[in-house]
């Protein structure tokens, strides 16, 4: 017998009486991504939806290595669509009453037209919303799997990570395979030096990804759709680096009205604005400037120190998107970044006998302009043309003067074809040309595995015009039973060393079932030596390319809708690594030091584990663990690499208390960095200072690092806008993590040098 209360509830079940169309996010369409969006709706008594909250976004096909649940703007698109829904009123005691319900909207791609059979482009991508009684929209379609070894982090996800100030670029540090970032910035990926990895914006290299100190990235989070992070075995569309690839993928803003966001924190202030211009054109602009310098100038300025420019940074971006037709998209993106500081010590010689003046300054700036044209018809072609400039000037007391001005030119074209037998064929060209004016007066810079800078001050100036021309092909070949092969080949010419790199690569992916995928990859990558290593008298112009072999194998498993796991084993073997040498070549009868040669080698190997809990039950978070060993060979001895961090454990979580409060936390436990013990000192009469006598290179370790970061967010909603405030506590329990060792003047005593103490950062953000 059915209980009367159940019959009553059944009779009161909301019924959809008016559907609405949702706009398929263009970037998701481009990448062939589907999604399922769970919404919480507030319905007025009359049946009109007046409040929509996105509970979760699940990208389909579900990829455990993808750490995103809300990218591609599916949430925004679903919210827009849900506001057009209309329900049959619910009557209680003869009166219509407001009610709330959860509602699932699924974005499903239209099937691709058979090649050559239908000349017209695919039908419009607007998903059909069907009421199947559970408010789910289910239209079956098969998306093309992204069968490459990468991890993606959406801007939405990273905004919730404590300790990153809502910056998606900084959140990369929390993924497996990435070591803790030092104060000088850069990503240490799978045991590679920061210089062995590269940062890009939509495939175009940029010179640096973070501002001074690593607290902020150089690009506004609002413009970032996701970060594609490739720790190894990357697609042939990427090359020239033996470490990892960090590619910041831009959003495609398509606003229906003006949207804006303003943020103010103790670090900086930022502004973001996007607006439509007609139906086909949209513009987004952003800018940010630090304001710590305002306080620091008055704090530091004094008799002994004159502050010409306290440390400050700013950046700006502009993005114009034009869609003349649905198959065509033109984007123009411009960005710039500027970091500067200048101090004048009245008596620099008091600290360093070699000082010839008191100027300590650093200026790093770069600009990029990128024109991108996308055609998505029977084929997908992307053409990118980028120009930019980079300017560096660093002065240290007249001992170190580095000035360099780059003019960069990048051209990239990539064609993707989906043949009749399935899969995808990709081919591309990748050209980079640089014009570099440089003037350097400095000792040789310190290198990995050495202890500080030594030797006389050298000078060099000149013009370099390196060109790197690459071509690549790649095929995604589904061969049945869920098995896909992705072979590829990349060839690059490097004019600076007049050498070629041929990089064959292969990824095998087997989707055993909906929840389980196995993958393995092998490949070769090449990389140029560092600039200073190639320029005489600092380096050796005869150096050759560095080569690395990447191997990895992993499994992706999603036991529950909200829980996923990814385990990857990797091995990276390095050959022809540039190393300092004391070998001497006799040229024209004169012994000439080589300074560097390609005699180095090394490897890194380990395992990466990612357990992710998507947003469910008001909680979202992940566990990331990296077991990594990075070694370098010094002649007959193998030693630890400077950046080795054997164990890296990161726990990230966020819990929502109701609709407007949330608390996030991040806790990290990392092996201490390797250090070279100092055995004592010898007094150098020419320098009037002691020089350290090092022990075994990297034969000791600093104490382990652990730190808790917290973030509290509160949001207030108003009629047309939203205000949120946050408090970020970095190093919440004020752990004195040892970052290095400090010594007295003759190296007979030492003490720990700790990192930043508890650092509270308060900020507020308004959005309309």
């Amino acid at each position, binding site marked *: 017998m059915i209980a009367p209360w159940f019959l009553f509830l059944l009779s009161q079940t909301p019924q959809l009486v008016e559907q609405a169309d949702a706009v398929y996010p263009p970037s998701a369409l481009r990448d062939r991504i589907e999604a399922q969006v769970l919404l919480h709706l507030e319905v007025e008594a009359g049946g009109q939806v007046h409040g929509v909250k996105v509970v979760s976004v699940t990208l389909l096909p579900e990829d455990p290595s993808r750490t995103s649940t809300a990218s591609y703007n599916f949430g925004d698109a679903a919210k827009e669509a849900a506001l057009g829904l209309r329900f049959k009123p619910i009557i209680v005691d003869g009166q219509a009453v407001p009610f709330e319900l959860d509602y699932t909207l699924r974005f499903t791609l239209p099937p691709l037209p058979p090649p050559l059979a239908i000349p017209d482009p695919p039908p419009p991508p607007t998903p059909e919303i069907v009421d199947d009684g559970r408010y789910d929209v289910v239209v079956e379609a098969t998306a093309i799997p992204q069968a490459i070894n990468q991890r993606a982090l959406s801007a939405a996800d990273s905004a919730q990570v404590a300790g990153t100030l809502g910056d998606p670029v900084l959140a990369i540090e929390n993924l497996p395979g990435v070591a803790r970032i030092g104060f*000088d910035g850069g990503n240490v990926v799978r045991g590679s030096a920061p210089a062995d990895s590269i940062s890009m914006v939509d495939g175009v290299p940029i010179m640096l990804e973070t501002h001074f100190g690593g607290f902020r990235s150089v690009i506004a989070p609002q413009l970032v759709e996701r970060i594609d992070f490739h720790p190894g075995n990357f697609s042939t569309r990427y090359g020239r680096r033996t470490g990892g690839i960090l590619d910041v993928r831009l959003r495609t803003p398509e606003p229906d009205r003006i949207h804006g966001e303003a943020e103010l924190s103790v670090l900086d202030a930022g502004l973001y604005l996007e607006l439509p211009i007609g139906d086909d054109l949209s513009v987004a602009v952003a800018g940010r400037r630090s304001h710590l310098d305002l306080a620091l100038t008055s704090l530091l300025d004094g008799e002994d120190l004159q502050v010409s420019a306290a440390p400050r940074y700013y950046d700006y971006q502009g993005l114009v998107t034009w869609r003349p037709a649905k198959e065509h998209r033109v984007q123009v993106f411009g960005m710039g970044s500027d970091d500067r500081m200048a101090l004048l010590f009245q008596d620099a010689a008091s600290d360093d006998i070699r000082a010839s003046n008191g100027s300590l300054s650093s200026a790093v700036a770069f600009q990029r302009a990128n024109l991108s044209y996308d055609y998505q018809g029977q084929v997908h072609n992307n053409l990118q043309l980028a120009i930019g400039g980079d300017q560096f000037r660093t002065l240290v007391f007249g001992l170190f003067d580095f000035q360099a001005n780059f003019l960069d030119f990048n051209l990239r074209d990539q064609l993707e074809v989906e043949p009749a037998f399935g899969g995808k064929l990709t081919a591309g060209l990748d050209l980079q040309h640089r014009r570099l004016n440089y003037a350097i007066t400095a000792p040789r810079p310190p290198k990995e595995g050495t202890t500080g800078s030594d030797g006389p001050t050298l000078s060099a100036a000149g013009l370099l015009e390196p060109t790197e021309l690459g071509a690549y092909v790649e095929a995604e070949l589904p061969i049945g039973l869920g098995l896909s092969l992705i072979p590829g080949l990349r060839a690059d010419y490097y004019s600076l060393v007049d050498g070629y790199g041929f990089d064959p690569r292969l990824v095998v992916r087997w989707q055993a079932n909906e929840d389980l995928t196995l993958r393995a990859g092998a490949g070769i990558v090449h990389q140029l030596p560092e600039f200073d290593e190639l320029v005489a008298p600092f380096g050796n112009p005869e150096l050759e390319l560095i080569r690395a072999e990447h191997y990895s194998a992993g499994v992706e498993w999603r036991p529950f809708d909200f829980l996923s796991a990814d385990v990857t084993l990797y091995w990276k073997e390095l050959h022809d690594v540039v190393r300092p040498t004391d070998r001497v070549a006799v040229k024209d009868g004169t012994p000439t030091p080589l300074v560097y040669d390609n005699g180095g080698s090394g490897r890194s190997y380990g395992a990466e584990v990612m357990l992710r809990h998507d947003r469910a039950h008001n909680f979202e978070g992940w566990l990331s663990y990296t077991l990594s060993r990075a070694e370098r060979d010094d002649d007959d001895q193998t030693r630890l690499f400077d950046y080795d961090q054997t164990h890296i454990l990161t726990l990230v979580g966020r819990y929502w208390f109701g609709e407007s409060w949330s608390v996030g936390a991040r806790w990290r436990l990392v092996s201490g960095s390797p250090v070279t013990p100092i055995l004592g000192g010898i007094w150098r009469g020419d320098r009037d200072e002691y*020089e350290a*006598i090092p022990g075994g290179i990297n034969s000791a370790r600093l104490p382990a690092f652990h730190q808790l970061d917290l973030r509290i967010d509160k949001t207030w909603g108003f009629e047309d806008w939203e205000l949120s405030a946050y408090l970020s506590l970095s190093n919440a329990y004020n752990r004195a993590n040892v970052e290095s060792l400090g010594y007295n003047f003759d190296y007979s005593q030492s003490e720990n040098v700790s990192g930043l103490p508890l650092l509270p950062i308060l900020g507020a953000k308004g959005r309309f």
Partner: protein
Amino acid sequence: MNRLIRGAFWAYAAATCAGCDDNFLPYNQVEGTRILGISAEPAELIPGESAQLSALVTGATSYRWSWCPVTLGPATGHACALEEHSISTASVAVITLPNDLRGLCEAAASVAAPQDGLRLNCEDERPSIAIRLVVEADDGPVSALWPLVLGENGRAPNLNPTLTAVWAEGAPLQDGDVVSPGKVLPLLAVASPTVAEDAESLKVTWFVTGGEVDRARTAYAPGGDLDAMGANTWTLPESGEDAALHLVIRDDRGGVSWLSRQVRLEGGAQ
């Protein structure tokens, strides 16, 4: 590229910061055995000729002088790649170089090239040989390495810069002058006026065995104010019997000399 610059910048900052922590004794505060300066007369030595070596040392009981044309890297304490030549065990030593020094250096390069950490002094812009001084004391040995610049026939030799006096309160400070404990004493070190004619940079390091000076080092750049290099303030210790001031002047071509004064503190034991 930017990472390289940042790395070099911070590495340099870290390297130059050895001893700058407030928890440690400042470099110019002298306690125990220290080597504060090494000098040669003449300042540059031409192969086949001789020079007199001397050192400003505190607290030493014995000396051991030697020289080497090719030294290994810092990991070995700059050990000699070839045979290290003994010079003397006296506080003042005389070195006489062989005529074929450059040939020896080049020969050493080809023979010793594969050795790890080899550094060729003779590749420098101003070729030099390494002078090593090891002094022994109750608190252990102290080692020093100093490049003696090689002169060239036909090139004007460098001369050691000199300090002629240090003035305090209108009179030259003399050994044995009595001063009040804790007194703030303005000082003016006087360099020989000829040093400014060489158009090179000069630095003075102000070492004290008691009290403290405002600036550990002062400097002069060509065209600058020579008197400013000599100005400093010495705050004498509050207690004790005496205190010493050691001024070491260096040019940027290897020329070195010094001037020392020891004062007695009023009320201290005689």
